[in-house]
């Protein structure tokens, strides 16, 4: 058990005179470390003399004690006990602050939950990230990263080392509903994916649902990632932050008044000095920059009402000398009113805006332009939580979303630009959803969560819809006619039910069997013709030719805890079927294409797998091992032979990784040192190697006749980190945490990709390792 004690007054006079039998008065005032209120009934025990006392209603313990060096132990029910050494050389009054067991001054660790939650809760396929542990993990260049930590969990992968976004159980990166304080984030990365654009200091908890998630949420088919920012501290102002080789972060929070708290934080990056280290002029003169910032105001006028307003902004820029300038930003604002109507009835009303904007400035002489694209979502939602009794809860709600999307708009800049303006008509859509959900403990051994969501989507005008000849693949040449829809007119509607059911059967005290089944629908699609998502990708609403994506997932799992919940074992299997996936025709032109459907082809997907997890949550050595066997396959569905990829058969998707093994350990050493390790192994992702060659235009050309028929070599890596917490005791308010890490300790040259380069007439294959060596890092996080 950790002890937390803050001693505010400590005096040590070496040369003081010790008087024989004289007794001095020692007065202790024991207070709650969080509320500063007196702790009634706290006990004092002095080790040397076996004397002690109990605190009165004012939290005061008074003793007459001989002078000397004393070891004081203070304890109280509901608090972490404290220990302090004191030299009693005159009458002293000392204040002790005891920390409540349920809070941690450093940060709230989301693992502070029921120890047997994985057995007792009906949910399955859940991942939660501990924020304090995140900062002690070995990471590239010392920058703590939420999404990178998620990818060390079973069932979560990325397209490659340094790639943005993440993939859950064979789903694509755009199929994850990433919510920051309830508002969706359409882009989650800085620097093309090397870093996540959410500052971990701001975040209180992170939870990812890999399976059928609550019907309260909809709009994405693969997973739900909930991130909530912290509320400002009510008791006083605090400053915390951190410095890594690539960025600096700072966070300020505290009370503006008794009812109003503020949390404001930001992060700013300085990658340019890394670029300046390069000898090449073009790199040296390149510029990259990013920042993100958040603000949260929480107003609690009384015990029944809480109003909070969150704002978030992230911006990235980079430019090559004399070349195109890229910039992209995310802006999110959300407001939430929570009203406790009755002790068992709560109403939440939320309004939000989330936008992602991209601009590209071309600066070639005579061809200067600005290209822009964006997606904006405005949403209002109401949720009502009703607790009938401890065993039965009901939740219902509704939401309405308006989407505004610009897939592409190019305008000339400067007087001598030959570029013609071109605007793809902006898209507007409306999504309505309503749900009912119940969680019911039928018997102590059986719980069920059953919910039903209904979503209804409408694409709104103005829009021109083209009709194509039916006997040929759609193309600009096969347009037969077009229909023009006026502003606000409904162009196309889609909708349907999304049932989600989960069942838990307690087999024994520490054993549970769980099953879940669910359907999800998605009406927005990320258009991206590359393996990894990039900032240039754009969003597109479902329309006549792009029906909504639908996923059906069934999962079954066994959960077992051992030794007083010290060990957790889980085995989960799942099967997922995906409809209406988007694939791209060979040589598809996506940018500024007003007939985008002529570049796309519809596909079906399926994913299945089994995930084994074993974690140890108590003791000096904690950690987890997880192994996943998973497949992710896709097949193009078209009646036109020429458009079929691999003949229309199922083939491995870009995120198909059959075997994944992650081992994480954390060893709490003496003197507040912690030693953490990560080990990662996975099968290489599918790739397409050339399977033929010929000469064309006087040059050798490589032929790729089968897609994803090859695999790059397997990946494995070990990272270690030592972290030192500078606190003398857990109640200390001002402290720092140093983290020294080594990424890829044994310098394995992991293949990031295999590529082929031609020198004169000869083509050779090469392996690119992004982190081809070990990468040391140092980071400092402080709390003042």
């Amino acid at each position, binding site marked *: 058990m950790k002890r937390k004690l803050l001693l505010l007054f400590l005096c040590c006079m070496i040369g003081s005179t010790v008087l024989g039998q004289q007794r001095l008065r020692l007065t202790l005032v024991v207070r709650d470390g969080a509320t500063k209120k007196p702790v009634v009934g706290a006990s004092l025990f002095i080790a040397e003399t076996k004397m002690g006392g109990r605190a009165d209603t004012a939290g005061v313990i008074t003793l007459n004690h001989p002078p000397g060096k004393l070891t004081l132990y203070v304890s109280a029910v509901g608090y972490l006990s404290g220990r302090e050494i004191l030299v009693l050389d005159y009458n002293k009054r000392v204040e002790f602050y005891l920390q409540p067991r349920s809070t941690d001054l450093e940060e709230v660790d989301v693992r502070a939950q029921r120890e047997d939650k994985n057995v007792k809760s009906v949910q399955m396929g859940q991942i939660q990230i501990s924020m304090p542990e995140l900062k002690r993990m070995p990471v590239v260049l010392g920058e703590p990263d939420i999404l990178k930590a998620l990818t060390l969990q079973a069932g979560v992968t990325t397209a490659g080392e340094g790639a943005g976004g993440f993939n859950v159980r064979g789903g694509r990166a755009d199929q994850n509903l990433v919510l920051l304080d309830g508002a969706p984030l359409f882009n989650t990365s800085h620097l093309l994916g090397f870093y996540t654009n959410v500052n971990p200091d701001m975040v209180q908890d992170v939870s990812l649902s890999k399976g059928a998630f609550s019907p309260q949420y909809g709009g994405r088919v693969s997973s739900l990632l909930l991130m909530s920012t912290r509320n400002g501290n009510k008791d006083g102002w605090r400053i915390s932050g951190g410095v890594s080789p690539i960025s600096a972060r700072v966070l300020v929070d505290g009370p503006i008044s008794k009812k109003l708290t503020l949390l404001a934080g930001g992060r700013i990056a300085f990658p340019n000095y890394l670029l300046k280290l*390069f000898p090449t002029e073009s790199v040296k003169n390149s510029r990259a920059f990013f920042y993100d910032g958040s603000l949260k105001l929480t107003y609690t006028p009384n015990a029944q009402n809480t109003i909070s307003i969150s704002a978030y902004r992230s911006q990235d820029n980079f430019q090559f000398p004399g070349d195109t300038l890229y910039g992209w930003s995310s802006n999110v604002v959300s407001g939430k009113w929570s009203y406790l109507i009755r002790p068992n009835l709560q109403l939440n009303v939320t309004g939000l805006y989330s936008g992602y904007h991209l601009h590209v400035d071309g600066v070639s002489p005579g061809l200067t332009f600005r290209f822009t694209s964006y997606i904006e979502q405005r949403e209002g939602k109401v949720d009502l939580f009703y607790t009938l009794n401890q065993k039965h809860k009901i939740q219902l709600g509704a939401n309405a979303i308006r989407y505004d999307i610009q897939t592409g708009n190019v305008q000339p800049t400067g007087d001598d630009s030959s570029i013609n303006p071109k605007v793809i008509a902006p898209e507007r859509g409306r999504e309505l959803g309503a749900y009912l959900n119940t969680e019911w403990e039928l018997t102590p051994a059986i719980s069920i969560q059953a919910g039903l969501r209904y979503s209804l989507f409408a694409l709104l005008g103005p829009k021109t819809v083209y009709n194509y000849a039916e006997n040929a693949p759609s193309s600009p040449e096969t347009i037969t006619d077009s229909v023009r829809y006026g502003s606000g007119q409904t162009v196309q509607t889609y909708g349907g039910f999304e049932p989600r059911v989960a069942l838990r059967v307690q087999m024994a005290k520490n054993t549970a069997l769980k099953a879940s089944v669910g359907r999800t629908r998605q009406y927005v699609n990320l258009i991206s013709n590359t393996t990894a998502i990039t900032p240039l990708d754009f969003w597109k609403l479902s329309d006549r030719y792009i029906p909504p994506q639908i996923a059906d997932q069934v999962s079954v799992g066994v959960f077992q805890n051992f030794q007083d919940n010290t060990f957790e074992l889980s085995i989960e299997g799942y099967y997922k079927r995906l409809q209406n996936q988007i694939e791209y025709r060979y*040589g598809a032109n996506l940018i500024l294409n007003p007939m985008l459907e002529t570049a796309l082809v519809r596909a079906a997907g399926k994913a299945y797998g089994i995930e084994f997890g074993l974690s140890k949550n108590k003791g000096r050595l904690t950690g987890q091992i997880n192994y996943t066997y998973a497949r992710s396959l896709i097949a193009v569905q078209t009646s036109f032979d020429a458009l079929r990829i691999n003949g229309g058969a199922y083939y491995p998707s870009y995120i198909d990784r059959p075997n994944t093994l992650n081992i994480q350990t954390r060893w709490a050493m003496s003197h507040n040192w912690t030693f953490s390790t990560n080990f990662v192994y996975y099968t290489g992702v599918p790739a397409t190697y050339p399977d033929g060659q010929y000469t064309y235009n006087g040059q050798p050309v490589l032929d790729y*006749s089968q897609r994803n028929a090859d695999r790059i070599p397997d990946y494995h890596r070990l990272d270690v980190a030592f972290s030192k917490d500078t606190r003398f005791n857990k109640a200390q308010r001002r402290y720092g945490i140093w983290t020294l890490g080594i990424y890829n300790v044994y310098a394995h040259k992991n293949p990031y990709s295999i590529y082929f380069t031609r020198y004169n007439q000869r083509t050779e294959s090469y392996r690119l390792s992004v982190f081809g060596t070990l990468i040391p890092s140092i980071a400092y996080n402080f709390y003042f």
Partner: protein
Amino acid sequence: MRQFIAYSLMLLGLIACIDQVQLPIRTETPQLVVEGQLTNEAPPYTVRLTYTGKYSGSGQDTISQYVQGAQVLLGDDQGHTTSFAATAPGRYQSVDSTFRGQVGRAYSLTVVLGDGKRYVTKAEQMPAVPAIDSISADVIATTNLAKPYQVAYSVSLQDPASEKNYYRWTGYGYTTRQTQGVACCTGCLSTCYNNCWIPVSSEQVNIFSDEAINGNPLRKHAVLQIPIYSLFPQLVEIQQYAMTQANYQFWKLYQQQDTRTGSIFDPLPAPVTGNLVNANVPTDIARGYFAVTSITRQRYRTKTYASRFYYAMTSYIFNIQLYFMPSGDCRKTYGQVPVVQPEGWQ
């Protein structure tokens, strides 16, 4: 997109590493490859037919890849046809000297292989090529120590507003390199074979769609760079092609696939298929393209190398090129190239 790849690789350049690897290579069924074009210039026209070979890295077609015994037929929308005769392994040449491509007329190629497989192209109409307004020549300094000064040639033209235009440019030219030469005859004082006219061609696929600039001038579109080794004139010819939209898309795909670096930001790998399709099996699409294209050519003779680099450039010519001038017949140093100025440039 290239910038993104370059950026991401550069950012990690200090720690990233690249190693040559040997990979297991699959063997797939050979596919037909077609290369040829019909133009508005005088026949004969050539079609090259090969098969894809096993990937080996060497880049050379093997003899077994050449298509032998194929029947090749080119026809227009008015019923005129010409057959092709084999002139070399895999090489077929049109035999009717009166069959000449005309702008506005549609053409289709048929290939019947020895095993009876029949491939046809969808009829394509020959587009008209806009005129080149002017060729610009600019002396530039490069970081290439072997070729520190070059002339960059570019074209300017007025894009017609009334139609979609898809352009392609190629270019070639001559630059001179000098040696000490040999006596023109025994006992002669005059020197011969001291000036070699070295041919230089554009290598990159250079295409452009007027989609973004329709109806506007296209100014100084770069085509070719030729190194400067002496103050003799350079001779340049630039060919400007008008392509069909499908042909432009083929070249886009070719470029896209040719510049793949294996990065996760690469476009997805794809076979560079074109317009020649098996008449019975629609999924059997030949690699390469049979183009129906019109051409305009313009020549240019560099008269001056005036530029802000002039003094540095002349210093380079006199102190490096002339000082280290090789002895003997220039063809011994620079190969079988012309030793007199090629004709056709005024």
